[in-house]
């Protein structure tokens, strides 16, 4: 992996009395390759390497007996920092219900994730209501109903006969009347470049007034992750991310990109198709994975 490559580079230089900035740059080129292979956005990688370079030059790497280890340590620490340092939990409301809205590009796993998060919260003592706000995709409402049945969670739906913002409005009222602690709203997949659909999402968000507006992002995403994250955040407002399909074994560089461009925390990762396949996001584990 990257560690071996860096060891190799510095091993060739072991005879030198002290390393130069050019030697560090050779190591940085190797790190750049690794980041790009991992799908980190090109520009995000550039900025990241600048920070690593500054620390490497300034931090005694040039005089170190173990420069490879030193550089790896700096890269790892900067990755963890960029990924959010430590786990950030869900934001709960002071007055119930806490409202969570899921959104994202087509096929990222929102409907399945609604069930996963619902189950995760139910197991921690919360009374959860799932809200079916996708009226476009064929059988989307039925899919959430079945997910709810599997996870033994209640689902509020109005078929496809009402607009999503109307369903959101009625769903929240129903949740308050019946004393639910958490509402998780599933919305239809959409492109960040689809003006009408982004407007609809803003209307749904307004009706929900959510405590969390989570963007569900596919871990296999490539360079385009920055664009989607930036647009959803600027046009609708993102409070955090859920990274799905981490079990694809994709290196997951997209997560660095979405963090770099929005600064919002990653709350969970999806690790499979079952409703129990949800884990809390750990920046240190993700950093190790990106490093390969």
């Amino acid at each position, binding site marked *: 992996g990257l560690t071996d490559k860096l060891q190799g580079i510095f091993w060739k230089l072991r005879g030198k009395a002290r390393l130069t900035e050019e030697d560090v740059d050779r190591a940085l080129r190797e790190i750049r390759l690794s980041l790009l292979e991992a799908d980190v956005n090109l520009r995000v990688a550039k900025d990241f390497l600048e920070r690593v370079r500054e620390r490497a030059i300034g931090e005694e790497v040039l005089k170190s007996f173990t420069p490879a280890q030193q550089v790896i340590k700096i890269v790892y620490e900067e990755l963890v920092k960029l990924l959010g340092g430590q786990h950030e939990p869900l934001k709960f409301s002071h007055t119930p219900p806490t409202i969570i809205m899921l959104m994202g590009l087509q096929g990222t796993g929102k409907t399945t994730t609604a069930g996963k998060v619902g189950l995760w919260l139910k197991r921690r003592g919360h009374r959860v209501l799932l809200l079916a706000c996708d009226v476009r995709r064929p059988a989307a409402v039925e899919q959430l*109903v079945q997910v709810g049945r599997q996870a033994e969670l209640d689902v509020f739906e109005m078929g496809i006969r009402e607009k999503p913002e109307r369903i959101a409005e009625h769903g929240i009222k129903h949740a308050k009347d019946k004393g639910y602690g958490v509402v998780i709203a599933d919305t239809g997949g959409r492109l960040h470049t689809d003006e009408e659909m982004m407007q609809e999402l803003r209307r749904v968000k307004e009706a929900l007034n959510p405590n969390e507006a989570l963007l569900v992002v596919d871990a296999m995403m*490539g360079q385009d992750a920055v664009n989607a994250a930036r647009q959803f955040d600027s046009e609708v407002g993102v409070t955090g991310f859920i990274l799905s399909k981490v079990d694809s074994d994709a290196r997951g560089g997209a997560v660095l990109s979405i963090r770099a461009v929005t600064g919002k925390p990653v709350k969970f990762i999806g690790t499979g198709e079952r409703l129990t396949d949800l884990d809390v996001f750990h920046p240190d584990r993700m950093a190790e994975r990106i490093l390969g």
Partner: protein
Amino acid sequence: LFRRERISEELFLELEETLVLADVGIHTAEKLVSRLKEAVRKGNCRTGDEAIELLKRTLVELLNAGGRNLNFGPIPPTVWLIIGVNGTGKTTTIAKLAWRLKREGRKPLLVAADTFRAAAIEQLKLLGERVGAPVIAHAIGADAAAVAYDGVEAAKARGYDVVLIDTAGRMHTRYNLLQELQKIWRVVGRSLGRPPDETLLVIDASTGQNAIAQAATFSSAIPVTGIILTKLDGTAKGGVVVAIKDQTQIPIKLVGVGESLDAIENFDPKEFVEGLFE
């Protein structure tokens, strides 16, 4: 974006970055640009514009090789098996293909062999109604290979000329699911008397380098005859198919460009390559 008179190191770097941003991948991008540098050194192009055109032509040739037609069987029914990882657009693409086939005067039959995911069968049934194509389905939890087999048998018995088999999304990292896919492929072949006429791997255009592993793993499990690149109507360029073509030679046959039934097009290498550089 590129109007270049002189060829400089800067131009090569810019071209490499453009390819990387399009998800072609750093290794494939470096390989393509170093070959371009070699061509320039040999005197094959003198201006920057000529160099860019040469790179584009090289990419078009790479993507064109191996043909791009959808195969119909020698004896009906034709059978196309649709596979891929979760959420890439398989079910929607089948509806689009059925819509196109109907407009060509053919009689497609849809087979709901995703017996795992919540409401997968319902989704295909609704799409079948919309398109006007019948759907063969069992209950959720049924054996996927059994449904696929029944689908081909039904087409033979009732004279449907193209069978489109929908399968469950499956991660290429799950060995047992790849084994299930092998079983589906074998069983379909048994009913048909030959392998499926197309086994199409559906890839989401926003996927990064992981798509290479997807293509390699799926095609090592069963023969993959073509790739369908979906969601090209977004801002993602889908450049990873360049790396896939380079490494596996699997031809890209179709592109998905939206969610409506008519949002499917034959893959056009020239148009696609222009898109990489936009």
